[in-house]
């Protein structure tokens, strides 16, 4: 299994609070991704990174920001969480553009 972890695995927070999710890899892969998964929508890309300090927006980036200061860490921040951001968040890594490895997911509930 690819060395990819996510923390926390579960979080419950209140509307308006900031939330940061962490993705950590030990594979030294160049590409890292954040997705959210919701019933009926499948996996939707939030942001991705193609190197340290190099990030770009995905399909559903509004309300989210990311940072990547080290190869191994990719942080996803919800500046002011809303109930619509209740979801399961997956981080993925890729060493080349035809293969992705996913983390175990973070289940976020915004009350």
């Amino acid at each position: 299994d690819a060395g990819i972890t996510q923390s926390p695995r579960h979080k419950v927070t209140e509307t308006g609070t900031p939330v940061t999710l962490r993705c950590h890899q030990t594979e030294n892969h160049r590409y890292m991704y954040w997705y959210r998964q919701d019933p009926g929508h499948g996996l939707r890309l939030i942001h991705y990174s193609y190197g340290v300090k190099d990030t770009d927006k995905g399909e559903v980036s509004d309300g989210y920001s990311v940072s990547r200061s080290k190869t191994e860490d990719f942080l996803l921040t919800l500046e002011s969480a809303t109930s619509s951001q209740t979801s399961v968040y997956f981080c993925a890594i890729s060493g080349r553009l035809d293969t992705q490895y996913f983390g175990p997911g973070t289940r976020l509930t915004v009350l």
Partner: protein
Amino acid sequence: TQLLEQSPQFLSIQEGENLTVYCNSSSVFSSLQWYRQEPGEGPVLLVTVVTGGEVKKLKRLTFQFGDARKDSSLHITAAQPGDTGLYLCAEDNYGQNFVFGPGTRLSVLP
């Protein structure tokens, strides 16, 4: 923006039956991946197909890439309860990232 469609959306079958699920795109794939996701876990890569007409086998699973590289299928022979899960296809989005289909949720009953 590329759009991926998967069919059927849901499939419930008895153990031992065969099944096929499909993935179709609005444009030509550069490469296509199939994943299986079990409840509470992240998707796990099953296979990557690149060449039009390509066929890959993984035990009881057979993956086919259409000649025109706009469609793909996954055939499972003699399905088992362990095959239960969400099957996702994903394509390379012009070398920048990946686009996922909505998935086919398979349930294999013992």
